[in-house]
């Protein structure tokens, strides 16, 4: 379809209809002093000059080509195989949107279907949608979904204090204006016991501090939650599922997570990808879009938007979700990543993260003044108690080309001078040794 601009006669006809002489008349309500302000812009530059200027500005960023990164806390530096960029860059795929006449785009629907299938396999759930903005909005949508599964009768959402602080803050932006109560995370060790008014309990595995609960312990928790008639929502790191028990196996009803680690770069914080998968019994309350596999009238395999009726464009006055669009391109990247890695590749990534993180933790714990905190197994993140404020340590590290850890004191007052460090397959042994050396120096200053 070609783009057809308005012609002069179109404009004249429209102005005549409105009783205006020229376009300027339409702006008469804007005070004259601000109607056409004089912008004090620098003189124009040539394309060559402007590219040079922009490049020198971008080089001031601490990017990951020139820094070793030990910062995680929800956004993770994992390797992205080249094939991911090649696939999502194809013009047939290169859009952030699910098409509005979806069935004509069978390739896009098939890609989404495969993404959903892999998310189900990874989490141990029956159905996955495609998709949400990020992990935080997935978690909030899952909580609202749990309330809807109870037909709105259960009004309490219990959230563990070890769920990502920003996710909990996001959840709280969804509840004002309703009489939903979000509770459980007021104190570091709050009561997470569900009762008859509880719609769901939300936990994180591995938790925000990187720690893993035993699957048997989580199974008991799931049983207690189900005995109270509530749902268990688990927020997880998809990479960890390459190595550890999928939430479906210990009784989760809805699994959410940040999908960025799956083939999406850090991108200065976005766009990211919200994973959401659930058991079949909750499927009808799942927000967003779901692609299904079917056959056409001639028996050939095809794909359709199965749960589009839940979308806002049909029953918008009774919509239960904020999701109007999705992250189709990021989901495609996640699908391409999972397909490229395969089961053994993902397991290898997870193993590398695990072993490198444990090597780093052991080395750091041996530095006088630094202690490893936490008594549970951990995956790729761990907490260290530091002899100095983490902000000071991080400044010193940055001078040596190292991006340090997350300062936990900003979210957890009792964890002042504690740092959350992250190690992935991207961190070389040399980088880890440099970090340890730099931390040793910090204590001597």
């Amino acid at each position, binding site marked *: 379809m070609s783009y057809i601009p308005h012609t002069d006669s179109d404009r004249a006809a429209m102005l005549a209809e409105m009783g205006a002489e020229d376009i300027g008349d339409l702006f008469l309500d804007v005070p004259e002093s601000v109607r056409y302000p004089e912008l004090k812009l620098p003189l124009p530059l040539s394309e060559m000059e402007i590219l040079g200027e922009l490049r020198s500005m971008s080089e001031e960023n601490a990017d990951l080509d020139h820094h070793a990164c030990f910062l995680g806390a929800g956004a993770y530096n994992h390797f992205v195989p080249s094939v991911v960029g090649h696939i999502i860059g194809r013009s047939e795929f290169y859009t952030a949107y699910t098409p509005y006449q979806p069935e004509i785009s069978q390739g896009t629907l098939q890609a989404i279907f495969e993404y959903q299938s892999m998310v189900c396999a990874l989490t141990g759930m029956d159905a996955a949608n495609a998709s949400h903005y990020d992990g935080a909005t997935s978690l909030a949508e899952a909580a609202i979904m749990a309330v809807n599964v109870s*037909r709105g009768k259960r009004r309490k959402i219990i959230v563990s204090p070890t769920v990502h602080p920003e996710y909990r803050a996001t959840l709280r932006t969804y509840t004002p204006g309703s009489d939903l109560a979000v509770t459980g995370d007021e104190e570091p060790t709050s009561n997470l016991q569900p009762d008859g008014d509880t719609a769901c309990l939300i936990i994180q595995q591995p938790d925000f501090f990187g720690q893993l609960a035993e699957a048997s312990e989580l199974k008991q928790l799931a049983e207690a939650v189900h005995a109270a008639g509530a749902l268990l929502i688990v927020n997880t790191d998809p990479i960890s599922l390459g190595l550890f028990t999928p939430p479906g196996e210990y009784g989760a009803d809805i699994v959410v997570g940040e999908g960025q680690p799956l083939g999406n770069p850090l991108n200065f914080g976005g766009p990211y990808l919200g994973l959401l998968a659930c058991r079949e019994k909750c499927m*009808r309350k799942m927000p967003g879009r779901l692609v299904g596999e079917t056959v056409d009238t001639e028996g050939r395999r095809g794909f359709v938007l199965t749960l589009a*009726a*839940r979308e806002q464009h*049909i*029953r918008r006055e*009774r919509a239960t979700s904020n999701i109007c669009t999705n992250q189709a391109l990021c989901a495609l990247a996640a699908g391409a990543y999972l397909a490229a890695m395969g089961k053994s590749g993902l397991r290898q990534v997870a193993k590398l993260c695990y072993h490198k993180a444990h090597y780093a933790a052991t080395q750091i714990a041996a530095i006088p003044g630094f202690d490893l905190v936490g008594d549970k197994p951990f995956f790729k993140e761990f907490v260290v108690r530091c002899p100095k404020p983490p902000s000071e340590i991080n400044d010193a590290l940055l001078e040596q080309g190292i991006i340090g850890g997350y300062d936990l004191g900003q979210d957890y007052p009792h964890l002042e001078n504690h740092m959350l460090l992250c190690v992935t397959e991207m961190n070389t042994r040399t980088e880890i040794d440099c970090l340890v050396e730099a931390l040793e120096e910090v204590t001597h200053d």
Partner: protein
Amino acid sequence: MKIDKNCRYMKTHEWVRVVGDLATAGITDYAQSQLSDVVYVELPEVGDAFDKGEVFAVVESAKTAADVYMPISGKITEVNEALSSPQLVNDDPFGEGWFVQFTPSDLSELDALLTPQEYQEHVAQEEGGH
């Protein structure tokens, strides 16, 4: 279009049939034909009470999702579990495709509903408007 002479109707295409102390409700033949293939019916729970005009169910078809309104006030005594095969709504809207049974709280509310004759005229009018 089928019309059940023993029912009263809402302009929004629900029917209600009262036998003794018990009422049964569903959607009309015209409604199911407009929705096309019904893929899911979300029913209330036994014991739920609704005022007339309140949404008590949602019917989803391949084309759309629509709210279903309570024709007269009452308390649900039974829901049609057989609608896990939603095709029943298309096949037999006044029979096997019923939605709920309930105890009406005020039978005089029936008087405000359309008679089969009036409903037929209402549909003809809606059709004409298209």
